């Protein structure tokens, strides 16, 4: 079970992982569209109305940025790294993020978020509805867990693809992630 959840790249073939990853990416885009969420960066999701095409383009931009930066980093560490291993790492590692829009069924998160913003002036702070605060706190904590899961999946996939070991590889991986996040936010902001 631990292998399936955190290290699927060590066990399963790239064909199986690619099929799972592509299907999950399409479902993820559909779920985000239906539940009015948008992935606008590697590590950013917002509540916004969008179209299914826009949702798909968002996902494709994020994947392309991650694949590009992770592949360049992996090649730097290990010359024999295959592009397909980085592609499946990215597609599969992103799957846990697709759970997050489910919290926004009936616009629950957007309404809670807007309510809290409405009560943001200092004189209204003590009138913030407790239920909205609780919803956002639970969502925040759950998001942190999902984030840890995604990063560990990404790192394990990267490690397997690039035979990466040691602190140097971790630092390079971290830099690649940050650059991919910046690039994806920039591209999504300017292209959409």
């Amino acid at each position, binding site marked *: 079970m631990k292998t399936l959840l955190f290290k699927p*790249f*060590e*066990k399963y073939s*790239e064909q199986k992982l690619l099929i799972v990853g592509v299907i999950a990416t399409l479902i993820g885009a559909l779920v985000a569209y239906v539940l009015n969420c948008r992935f606008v960066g590697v590590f950013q999701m917002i509540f916004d109305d969008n179209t299914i095409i826009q949702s798909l383009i968002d996902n494709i931009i994020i994947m392309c940025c991650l694949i590009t930066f992770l592949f360049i980093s992996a090649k730097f560490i290990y010359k*024999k790294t295959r592009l397909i291993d980085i592609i499946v790492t990215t597609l599969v590692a992103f799957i846990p993020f697709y759970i997050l829009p489910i919290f926004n069924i009936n616009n629950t998160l957007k309404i809670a978020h807007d309510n809290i913003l409405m009560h943001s002036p200092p004189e209204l702070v003590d009138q913030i509805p407790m239920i909205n605060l609780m919803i956002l706190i639970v969502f925040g904590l759950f998001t942190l867990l999902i984030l840890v899961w995604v990063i560990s999946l990404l790192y394990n996939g990267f490690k*397997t693809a690039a*035979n990466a070991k040691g602190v140097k590889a971790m630092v390079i991986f971290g830099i690649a992630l940050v650059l991919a996040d910046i690039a994806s936010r920039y591209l999504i902001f300017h292209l959409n």
Partner: protein
Amino acid sequence: MKKLPVNCPSCESPLVASQLSCSECETVISGSYSLPVLLQLSKEDQDFIFEFILTSGSLKKMAAKMEKSYPTVRNKLDDILEKINNLKN
């Protein structure tokens, strides 16, 4: 089968074969023969190399047989190559 010790349990230096004997006629040869590099690898690594030869050097076939992904098997081979190079130097 007993595991062949390759390092000294006291100082961890590589061991050498100092006596060889024939199980048929009980002839004993003494000397100082260093162990082949492959024998100095762990049992797991030796088994991996054995499988590698049995699959005609196909990492894809090995990955399928071991129920591991291709890069995992390739990484294992690279790690063994690194160990062999270290032992040779």
